[in-house]
């Protein structure tokens, strides 16, 4: 089977992001970049499906030249080939991104459709929740988001989404689009040989003209800092006082 995973290069989470004074960009001097965590899981899920059912996994991204690093990372953990849609250093809005991806998918499907197209549930940086849905709509294929389980059947895919009370199962005809959520599986690390192989992989480029959508960025701002206050309690009596204050006793 043929699986496409759409990924996005995002700053590695964990460190405080420094917004440049102009409010338009972030300081990337000491930042590492990674694949959005949901998408990292999507790549792993796709690789496992191919290991189980045969076939190949294509990864695709729209982003700056540096995003080739993320494509190669995906190859190093089992993806077969990679497509980069160059988009410069600026983030495209979800509509423009979805249009470009749709065009690129059309091009990549000239010799046959992907059975599955996997997206992350949302990107780790802008968190728009839109691109996958827009692409599935444009392609006229069914899509379910928030998926933590994928099973391939004959001509269908069964998807599991966790809810507060249990889980929901969906059966979609193939070809289909899936929004994968972190936790579906544990992504593997690249092996040294995998990494070496990824260096040799051919990363194809698809040029897509930007057709701006209806969303534009005004400014970036850091959320208010969460101040954590730690009080060291030196004895049990102090702990009792605090609990009484909090109404716990």
């Amino acid at each position, binding site marked *: 089977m043929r699986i496409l995973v759409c990924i996005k290069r995002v700053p*590695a989470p*964990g*460190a*405080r992001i*420094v917004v440049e004074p102009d409010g338009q960009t972030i300081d990337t*001097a*000491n*930042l*590492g*970049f990674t694949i959005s965590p949901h998408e990292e899981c999507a790549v792993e899920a796709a690789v496992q499906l191919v290991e189980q059912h045969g076939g190949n996994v294509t990864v695709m991204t729209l982003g700056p030249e540096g995003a080739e*690093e993320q494509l190669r990372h995906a190859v190093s953990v089992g993806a077969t080939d990679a497509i980069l849609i160059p988009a410069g250093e600026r983030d495209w809005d979800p509509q423009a991104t979805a249009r470009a991806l749709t065009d690129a998918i059309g091009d990549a499907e000239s010799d046959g459709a992907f059975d599955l197209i996997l997206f992350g549930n949302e990107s780790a940086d802008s968190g728009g929740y839109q691109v996958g849905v827009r692409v599935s709509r444009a392609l006229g294929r069914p899509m379910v988001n928030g998926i933590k389980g994928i099973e391939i059947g004959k001509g269908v895919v069964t998807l599991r989404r966790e809810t507060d009370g249990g889980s929901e199962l969906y059966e979609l005809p193939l070809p289909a689009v899936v929004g994968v959520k972190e936790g579906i599986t544990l992504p*593997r*690390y*690249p*092996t*040294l*040989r995998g*990494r*070496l192989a990824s*260096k040799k992989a051919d990363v194809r480029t698809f040029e897509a003209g930007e057709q701006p959508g209806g969303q534009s960025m005004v400014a970036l701002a850091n959320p208010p800092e969460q101040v954590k206050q730690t009080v060291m309690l030196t004895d049990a009596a102090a702990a009792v006082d605090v609990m009484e204050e909090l109404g716990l006793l």
Partner: protein
Amino acid sequence: MSDLPGGANVVVIGAGIVGNGLVWHLAELGWKDIVQIDKGPLPNPGGSTGHASNFIFPVDHNKEMAALTLDSQAQYEEMGVQVTPGGIEVARTPARLEELARRMTSAKSWGIDSRLVSPAEVSELVPFLDDSVILGGWYTPSVSVVDSLQAGTIMRERAQAKEALTVASNTEVLDVEVAADRVVAVVTDKGRIETDHVVVACGVWSPRIAHMAGVTIPLVPAVHQMIDVGPLPELQATGNEIGFPIVRDMDTFMYERQTAGSMEVGSYAHRPIFHRPDDIPSLDESLLSPTELPLTMDDFDPQLADAIELMPFLGEAEMRYGINGLLSLTPDAMPLLGETEVRGLWSAAAVWIKEGPGIAKMIAEWMTDGYPEIDPHSSDIARFYPYQRTDKHVRDRCSEHFNKTYGIVHPREQWETSRLARVGPFYPRSVELGAVFFEAGGWERPHWYEANAHLVEKYGVEDRPHEWDARWWSPIQNAEHLAMRDGVGMVDVTAFAIFDFTGPGVVDYIDTMAVNQCDVAVGRAVYTPLLTHDGGFKSDLTIMRLGRHHYRVVTGGFDGGRDSHWFKINLPDDGSVHMEDKTSAITTVGVWGPNARDLVSRVTEDDIGHEAFPYGTVKFVTIGEIPAMMFRISYVGDLGWEIYTDMEHGLKLWDTLWEAGQDLGVTAVGAGVYGTTGRLEKGYRLMGAELESEYTPVEAGLARPKVKSADFIGKAAYLAARASEPEAIMCTLTMEDHTSAAGIKRFPTGGNEPILTLDGERIVDSQGRVSRVTSAGAGPSVGKFLLLGYLPPSHAVEGTELQIMYMNELYPVKVAVAGSTPLFDPQDSRMKQ
């Protein structure tokens, strides 16, 4: 609320391995009211210590670093934070095999057990290594791994247990206040601390902190990449942190070190990647820590194949972690230690885990006693001249040597970058004569002149058959030597550092600094040691009395920075002595050889005859049209003078002398003669080689018959040394047979080769100092290859037969001179006629 005290005896900035070691050793030496500050949290504030690989290969070609590393291992062992899995350096090339033989030699010098091993033995020690890709290895059982963070905690707690230390973590230094060139306070975000002593032990941030006090610490934060690969069942099976020896894959500039169930693979093979101290991210801007930056994998990729080739099982293992770890690099790859130009502000920077506690102890001794037990001259921060502290110089030099971290570096190797920074007036003539320039304190100094190549045949000088021995050497040097002895040579000694001292207090001041009597008649000059407070060598130099209240000090280009600092910090506070650095104002040419007087007398009206111009005196003369100062002295053992003039007259002076000497056989003579062959034939000692703070003038054979009545630095120790028998004596040895096992004539480079008994045993004096070659080189006029080295009195007997080890082979040597009597012209009649 701040618990910071308002005052302290000493503020140590930094809680990495050095800062932590320092607070302990200061407390051990009796310091109280120590305050230690770090911007980060404890026990890992986020500096280089926190991500260090923590392994220690104890053998180093450099004596100071080897001593500090061995001391550090002893300290880690005492703290119970060291394990000893052993370590192997493997060779993939024949050149590396030779380097391993050289390392064996250094191991012998420092008394470290190690052995060369075959590929099969390597794979026996490290079964997952493919021995078909290596030619051999060098195994050191005492290679260790330490827990540097735990060591830090232990050392802090020991200082706290002595009630000597207040620790302030999460405290940022905002300013280091200086008044009248002295440090007075450290300002932090939690308060101001008044203090007379501040130690900058901030690793990669050291330049930033020192800059607050107006001081430059020449250091660049540089990336060292490492990745963690695993899990690997072979390693998991050991059940411990490290069960297999550490492997250094020297030819690929990489290492493989077990960390529990995985393998840490580190590299010094990637491009130099430098940062700036001000741009290092803060703790909260860092994914891991400020000094564990995101791995730039493209830089590591080329090394992956090498790693897999050596250890195939790494290929299928996963890369779980990788960093661009920051560490400190300096222009000459040595640490930056000692008091800076601001009094009371100390640098303890550019220190790695392997030497951290040893350096901490060294600096604590230095701060307490005025000088440490281990000679620190090669890491003294004062060694750098101003241009060597510029950002460009630091980065250029660090770029050049980063990939030599595991490289094969020849003892005479010359830098390629940052050249032509100090050029004297004779330079154009030197270029015309095909000079091969070596760097001396930044100066471009001719080492030999290709224009003299014809002299090689004339004097029948043999080449050296082994490339290593011939590297950065030429037979022309020996030919120039012989030509000088036959006629007259001109030597560019512009690299001298020159300081003038004037003022009403100058006589007392100079007498306080120097061992030998300097209250001499105007026009006399004195060669004298300067001592540390413990009576070891701080320097040796020449002091000329040019006026009633005017002295001129001339010292070596390699020593000028340190000597300048030593003179400055000992200047009287009352302003009665003025010091002026004249190095850039004055140039010097040496004219030596039996025809020297004939030559100079042709271009001066002044009387330069033996009676009118005795040895050891100075005269102001006119040479041609150039005002000059002549100093009758010789470092090469022949009649002649150092001739000084203003820098702008230099070229004219050279041309005048050169022209006058044409029919006298004048030869341009390089520093290969001045610094090695001429010097060694005369047994003259060199600062930093024979002369170190660990030896006394008595042992060096430089004690004069009488001691002056005036007090001087180190006098008490000097008197004590004179009152007892020396425990070592500087000797000149001759090499009796150069033939190696392969039948090739070998010529030692003089890089600390051990001097051994005929049984092959190391020779160690009663103070634990090992006998080793301090200098080596040809003695063309005596027809022998000469070596200098200290021997205990039992061996320092002329005619005693011994051996030296060179490249792991033994060669017979003989003690030719015990003491300072020159081998060539023992009566000094050539110089003093």
